[in-house]
Structure formats: structure tokens, C-alpha cells
């Protein structure tokens, strides 16, 4: 009896020692070829030849909340990444910030400039997978639901009496007349002028399906998106686990999908993603990049990865109601004193050598028309910073900080607590500005408090957060910087800027509009309502056997061209 008891013990001991030995040795026998393929570019312009079939498993950061991407409930990337493969899109943004009229016969036509009347022609071949064509009815129903109003609903919270839950009315609220010319052609009249009309009519579900759902617009698409007008169609959603799309064999586009299925596996903890890739449980990841995660993925020999710079950019917003910050001299001193290159080198260069300072707050660097403005602030210049302060009537005190009228310049810098990168950023900026005699105090709040309570109430001095660039930069920038606008947290107001912004928002020529966008930025470099820092990186990892998968660093994301995805011929063979 004694012996039989001891043997299992020895076995157990052996197993545990093996476990520990294995764990300790985990670093030294990694593949010698690791890191070879990391900087490979995925070029999505030329479609590589694909083999038949295959299934791609994507590690989704978040589970979708439903499928109506135009409601405030479903207005997130987790939903967009799915419906981008399913719904009707008149237009999609290309990675170069251009426009691809995927669902139209051609560019929408300007019928009249005053009043502004635009005509859209839906592609003749465009159809849902249940056989019905995509018609003006689908678009009109979509528009009607967004702008549906009921006088009985008018209240303080809902001044226009909107009936449905809609995330944004921009553009739609300017429509005064929607006219169906025929099944595939419709004309829309805008008043006031809406210059970003080219971006309208995306994420459109089938009208007939939505009408048949008891929940209607708000909740009718909670569990099922209905028929597909995209390259894939909805197959199954196992809540908490995965969502599966399958090939839409009736897809009318030029490039036919070859993958049998795209599976979204829900992996909210990005730390689980590298192991899942390594163990062949997922094929594609697109997490918020973090250094150790990027390192781990770059070690994998059968995965190629790509760092891009997306439309999201970090910046410092100045509260112009603050007694010091309302003084341009102080803002100038800060712009001269913050070493943006040093911040990029410290925090972003470890991700990619291509990381760079952003010198424009209206256009992002990979966008047509981008100019590196604010020339005088591009290189850090502590001497000029101090000069600006002196010229503004400030004098340096014994403690090394500037003061005026006995009051020392002391400002709070606030960002989202718990975000390590931003916390480090705050410390760096604090140290940099201390050198030019401006005292900063770190005053971070959880993102909830910052965005819900502090920013809208103007309870900040300098705030560090992010804005998102766009293919339609003028509309976005107008929303953020125009006098009295909801998102204008720093209370910036400049009549000249407002004039240019208004002009830009009503300029129907897209080239001229980009010039005006740049002018808007130049105007703001004079006033410095904020200071752009850098664009945030994106990170895409994809197993080598897949071809034509690449990031689209506009707001579109990597799923924009899923119809050309596939497995390589070699892998399929």
C-alpha cells in the first residue's frame, strides 16, 4: 500500500517540475526566424490571386450590440465591422482617403447648386440576396426613419420631436425634399447646403425586412440584420461566443468573395489574442496596439503584421475661459515649449519608425491635401516660449515659474485616468513645460467623468484626449471648433474661422473644399485653441495564408474590401 501511494506522488512531482521547466524555458527556444516578416506591407490595390474556399476567424474586440449602425445603441466599430459586409453602401472610403462609389452607377450628380439638388443612381445590378433589387425605396425608408418626427414627442430633451434612436442627423436634417425618380434614381434637395453629400447613404438595411420587424428601426435589427446586399450574408450569432457570416453567392459586385465564412470570435481581452493566433484559433486580429502585444505577434512566423496610422489623433485642448489660457501669449509659450517630437519618440516610435508629429488638426497626414502647418511650432523652442511669456507681461519668479500680477501660471492637465500612455504623456508635458516656466498639475479623471461631466462643463484647463479625422474633414472640424458648437469644449470662437468653416461646409467642389479645410487649420494655428500631437497607431495581424487583407486607416477599418479577401493559391492547394 505504501508503494502504490508513493508512485503517483513521484509522477505528480515529475509533471509539476516539467511544467515549471517548460515555463522557464519558454523564451530561449523561440523561432530563430522571428521578426523577419514584420514590416511587410499589405497592398490591397492589386488583387492577388486567390484559391477557392477557406474560413477566416477574426478576433473581435467587442461583441456587436445589434445591427442597425445608425442608432446610437449600435453606432460602434464592433457593429460596423460586421455590417460593412452586409448592408448597402453607396460609397466607401478608400485607404487613401478617396471615395469609391461601390453601390452607385457613378459619382452623385449635382443637378442644381441653388437650391442644392443632388441625384444618385443606384447600381442596376445591386440586389439583396433574397432576390429583390436594391431600390430607392430602401434609401427613402432609411431617410424617413432617421428624420421621423412626432409633435407629441417634442420635449426639452428632444426639441425636434424625433421618434427614432438615431446617432447623428448630420446631412439628413438638411434634406428638404426626397424625390424618387425611378426604382434606381433619386433626387435630394438640401437646405442649407450640405457639402459632404458624397458620403451619404451608407449602412442601409433592407426596408422591407425592417418594416416587417416588430421592433422597427430601434430594435428590429437586434438579433438579425436581414437580407444582405454585400459580399457576405449573416449566418449565425452565438451570443457571447461568435458570429458567422457566409459567402453571398448572389453578390453583384465585380470581385466575387471566395471565402466560405468569416467568423467573428469575441475576444475582448486583447492579451488573449497573441496566443489564440499562435494556436491557430484565430487568423486575424486588430486590437488597440500595445507594445508587448505587438512584440508577441511579430514573433510569430506564420503571421504578417502591419502598423498603420489611423484617423484618431491625440491633442491638447486649451480651455479659453481659463484666466491664463485665454491669453494667446500663454498658449504660444505652451506650443513652443511642448516637445512633440520627444513625445512621439518616447511613446510612439517603439511601435513604428513611421510615427510622426501631426501638424494639422483638420486633415490627417495620410490624407490628400494635408499640409504641415504651424511651421514656427514644429521644433521645440524653449527660448521662444519664454520670449512669448515676457512679451505677454509675465515675469519669472524665484521658483522658476512665470507670473503676472502676483499670480503664478499654474494649470491643470487632465486626461483619462488608467490609460497608461496618456498618463505618461501628461508627465512628459509637465516636465517639458516646467523648463519654460509654466507649472502644470496632473488632474486626471476616469474617461466617464472626463467626457460626461468635465469636458462639456468646461471643468478643465488643458485636456488631452483624441479626435477622429475624416474623409469629410470640414464638417467634422466645423462641429468641433465653430463658435458655440456642442463639441467645442474649449469655447474657441473666431469669426474669421467661422466664416471659412461655413464656406467650406457649403463648397460643393471637393478639391476646393480640401483647400478650405487647410485654411481652417492655418487660421487655428494663429489662435492655438489646441495643439495636435500625433496620430494613433493601428495594428493588424493576419495569418500568411490569407491574401488581400489590409487595414484601411480611414474610419472604414479593415473590413472595407472583404469581397477580395481569400486564401492564397498555395494555401488552398
Amino acid at each position, binding site marked *: 500500500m505504501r508503494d502504490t501511494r508513493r508512485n503517483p506522488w513521484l509522477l505528480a512531482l515529475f509533471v509539476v517540475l516539467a511544467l515549471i521547466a517548460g515555463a522557464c524555458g519558454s523564451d530561449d527556444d523561440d523561432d530563430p526566424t522571428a521578426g523577419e516578416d514584420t514590416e511587410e506591407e499589405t497592398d490591397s490595390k492589386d488583387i492577388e490571386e486567390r484559391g477557392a474556399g477557406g474560413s477566416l476567424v477574426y478576433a473581435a474586440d467587442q461583441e456587436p450590440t445589434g445591427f442597425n449602425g445608425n442608432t446610437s445603441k449600435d453606432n*460602434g466599430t464592433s457593429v460596423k465591422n460586421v455590417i460593412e459586409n452586409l448592408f448597402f453602401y453607396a460609397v466607401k472610403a478608400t485607404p487613401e482617403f478617396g471615395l469609391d462609389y461601390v453601390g452607385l452607377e457613378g459619382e452623385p450628380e449635382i443637378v442644381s447648386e441653388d437650391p442644392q439638388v443632388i441625384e444618385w443612381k443606384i447600381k442596376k445590378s445591386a440586389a439583396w440576396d433574397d432576390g429583390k433589387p436594391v431600390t430607392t425605396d430602401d434609401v427613402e425608408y432609411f431617410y424617413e426613419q432617421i428624420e421621423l418626427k412626432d409633435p407629441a414627442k417634442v420635449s426639452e430633451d428632444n426639441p425636434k420631436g424625433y421618434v427614432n434612436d438615431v446617432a447623428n442627423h448630420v446631412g439628413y436634417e438638411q434634406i428638404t425634399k426626397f424625390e424618387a425618380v425611378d426604382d434606381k434614381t433619386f433626387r435630394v434637395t438640401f437646405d442649407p447646403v450640405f457639402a459632404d453629400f458624397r458620403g451619404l447613404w451608407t449602412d442601409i438595411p433592407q426596408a422591407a425586412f425592417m418594416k416587417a420587424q416588430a421592433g422597427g428601426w430601434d430594435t428590429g435589427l437586434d438579433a438579425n440584420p436581414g437580407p444582405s446586399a454585400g459580399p457576405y450574408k449573416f449566418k449565425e450569432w452565438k451570443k457571447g461566443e461568435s458570429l458567422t457570416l457566409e459567402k453571398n453567392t448572389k453578390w453583384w459586385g465585380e470581385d466575387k468573395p471566395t471565402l466560405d465564412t468569416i467568423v467573428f470570435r469575441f*475576444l475582448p481581452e486583447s492579451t488573449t489574442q497573441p496566443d489564440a493566433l499562435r*494556436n491557430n484559433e484565430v487568423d486575424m486580429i486588430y486590437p488597440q496596439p500595445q507594445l508587448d502585444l505587438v512584440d508577441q505577434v511579430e514573433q510569430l512566423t506564420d503571421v504578417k503584421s502591419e502598423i498603420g496610422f489611423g484617423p484618431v489623433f491625440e491633442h491638447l485642448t486649451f480651455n479659453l475661459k481659463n484666466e491664463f489660457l485665454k491669453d494667446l501669449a500663454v498658449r504660444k509659450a505652451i506650443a513652443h515649449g511642448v516637445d512633440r517630437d520627444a513625445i512621439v519618440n518616447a511613446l510612439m516610435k517603439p511601435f513604428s519608425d513611421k510615427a510622426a508629429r501631426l501638424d494639422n488638426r483638420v486633415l490627417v497626414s495620410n490624407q490628400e491635401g494635408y499640409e504641415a502647418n504651424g511651421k514656427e511650432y514644429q521644433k521645440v523652442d524653449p527660448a521662444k516660449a519664454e520670449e512669448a511669456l515676457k512679451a505677454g507681461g509675465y515675469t519669472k519668479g524665484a521658483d522658476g515659474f512665470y507670473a503676472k500680477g502676483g499670480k503664478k501660471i499654474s494649470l491643470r492637465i487632465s486626461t483619462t485616468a488608467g490609460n497608461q500612455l496618456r498618463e505618461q504623456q501628461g508627465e512628459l508635458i509637465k516636465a517639458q513645460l516646467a523648463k519654460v516656466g509654466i507649472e502644470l498639475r496632473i488632474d486626471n479623471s476616469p474617461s466617464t467623468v472626463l467626457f460626461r461631466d468635465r469636458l462639456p462643463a468646461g471643468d478643465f484647463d488643458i485636456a488631452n484626449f483624441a479626435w477622429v479625422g475624416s474623409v469629410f474633414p470640414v464638417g467634422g472640424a466645423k462641429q468641433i471648433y465653430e463658435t458655440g458648437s456642442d463639441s467645442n469644449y474649449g469655447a474657441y470662437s473666431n469669426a474669421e474661422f467661422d466664416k471659412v468653416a461655413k464656406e467650406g461646409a457649403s463648397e460643393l467642389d471637393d478639391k476646393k473644399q480640401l483647400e478650405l479645410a487647410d485654411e481652417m487649420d492655418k487660421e487655428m494655428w494663429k489662435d492655438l485653441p489646441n495643439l495636435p500631437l500625433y496620430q494613433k497607431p493601428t495594428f493588424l495581424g493576419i495569418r500568411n495564408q490569407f491574401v488581400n487583407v489590409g487595414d484601411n486607416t480611414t474610419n472604414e477599418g479593415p473590413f472595407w474590401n472583404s469581397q477580395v479577401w481569400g486564401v492564397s493559391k498555395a494555401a488552398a492547394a
Partner: protein
Amino acid sequence: MTGFVLRRLFLSIPVIVLSSFLVFALVAASSDPLEALRANPLASRATIAEREAELGLNKPVVERYLDWAGDVVRLDLGRSYADNEPVWDKLERGFGVTFRMVALSTLLALMLAVGLGVFSAVRQYSVGDYAGTFFAFVFFSMPVFWLAGILKDLGIRFNQALGKTVFYTIGERTPNLEGTWWDVTANRLGHLALPTITLMLVTMAAWSRYQRAAMLDVLSSDYVRTARAKGLTEFRVISKHAFRNALIPLTTVVAIDFAGIVGGAVITESVFAWQGMGRVTLGAINRGDIPVVVAALVIIAMVVVVFNLIADILYAVLDPRIRNA
């Protein structure tokens, strides 16, 4: 006995009501279900206000709590702010996932812990006892995510060496798997293996210490000495007289711990990406999804109350002294 059970359940009601209000108020103050919408510059303040009104976020916390409690009394747990799914569906699914994850590991941990504890006590200060003690403390003090990480790494290495996936690191099954009953079962087991081993090692480590202490206590008691003096065989002394009595303390510990595990083995669930109770609750806390958080809390609290009660009843059943007192 019935009176005892009813009294205990009745006394737990104020605790649950108070804790649900505290959680409601804390989550309402600390997180925001509309955070993403607020960060979107295209969403106007009117849109946000409208949405706030729709979800009732603009009302005072006490009023919101009373609304919620009124629905709960009518057996309606409401719907998630995030995806409008009925809260009950979400929690039911989460419980199922957690139960599937912890049931086997708890059973295995219990059997191993009892075996190991008894062995360590009977062979006190032997090599086996020292080794058992050593590893119990190793696993007890090891952070779960670290242990899980090591096991994942070993599992993946094993797969790579074999050229075939046996162990899986995420979820409880491969999506859209088609195959025979055996394929599906093997796939499930391959997903279950690593989380089960992780949880088993961690729980076993603690429980075996309880069992060892209880057994040592019993072995030095008078009635064991009496049994030995009567000339019973050592096997009979240990199995009949000592072992049974030494199970009593562990029973209560296990019953109470199990309630805690069902409430969410949140780290294990996160590392292995199982959408169980802990992860459902944690995700809801982060998103400010109050209906889900508070309902989850109340149900977890009720499970804890019930399991504590079961522990007490078991104690009485196992120990006649308590029953008759």
C-alpha cells in the same frame, strides 16, 4: 428545521436590498453607458439628451433604483442598456458558461484535495507530506493568470509538437464545427482542459490544507485513540472513525467557496475567454450597464446566501451534536 431555513432566508432580504442599492448607486456614479456616443463629435447634445431620457439616466439615482426595484418585484429584470437584450437571457447564459467551466474542476479539486489532505495528515512529516505542502503553497500563492498563461503556453507547445490542435486557449468550442459526436466532444474537452486544470490546481491547493488540518485534528482526538485501543485495524480507524469526521469542516468550506466560484471565476474566464458570469458582470460594470450589473449582483448574492444555508444544513446533517443542540 423549516423555521430555521425560513428565518435565514428572511434575514437575507434586507442585506440583498441594501447591497443592490449600493451597487446601483456606485455603478451609476462611476460609469457611463453613453461614453462612446459622447466621444463622437457628430452626435449632437440633443441626441445624447434624448438617449439619456430614453434610458432614464437623467433621473435621480433613488428614483431610478425604485423604478428598477418595482420591475424586479414584478419579476422583470429589464433589458441591457448596451444591446437591449433581456437581462435574464444574458445572466442565464453566463451562469451556464460558468457552471460548465467550474463544475468539473470543483469535483476534481474536491476529490484530489481530500485524498491529498488525508494522505498528508496520515503520513505527517513524510516526504510526501512535505512535497504536498510545498506544491499546495506554490499553487495557492501563484496568481491565476500566470498559472493559466503557463498552461496555455505548454498546451500550444504540445499542439505544435503534435502538429494537431488538442488543447484550445479560448472559448468553449470551435465555431461552426461539423463532425461526428466524437469530434464535437473531443473539441469541447480540448477547450475545457486548460481552464479546468487551472481552476483545479488553485482550488485544490487551498482545500487540501483544510482537509489536512481537519484530519490531523481528528487523528489526535480521544475517540480515535479509543478506536485504536479497541484493537481496530489502522485502515478501519482512519476510514470509518477519523475520515468521516474530518470531512465536516471541508464540506462547509466547499459549499461557501463554490458559491463564490459560481459568482464568477473572473480571471480564469477572462484568460480563457469564456463569457461566464464574472466576465458578463465585469463587462457590464465597465460599460455602466446597470440593469445587468445589479441583477447579476443580486443573483450572486442569493446564490451565496443559499449556499451558506446549505453549508449550515449539511453541517447539521453531518454532525449530530449540532442537529440536537
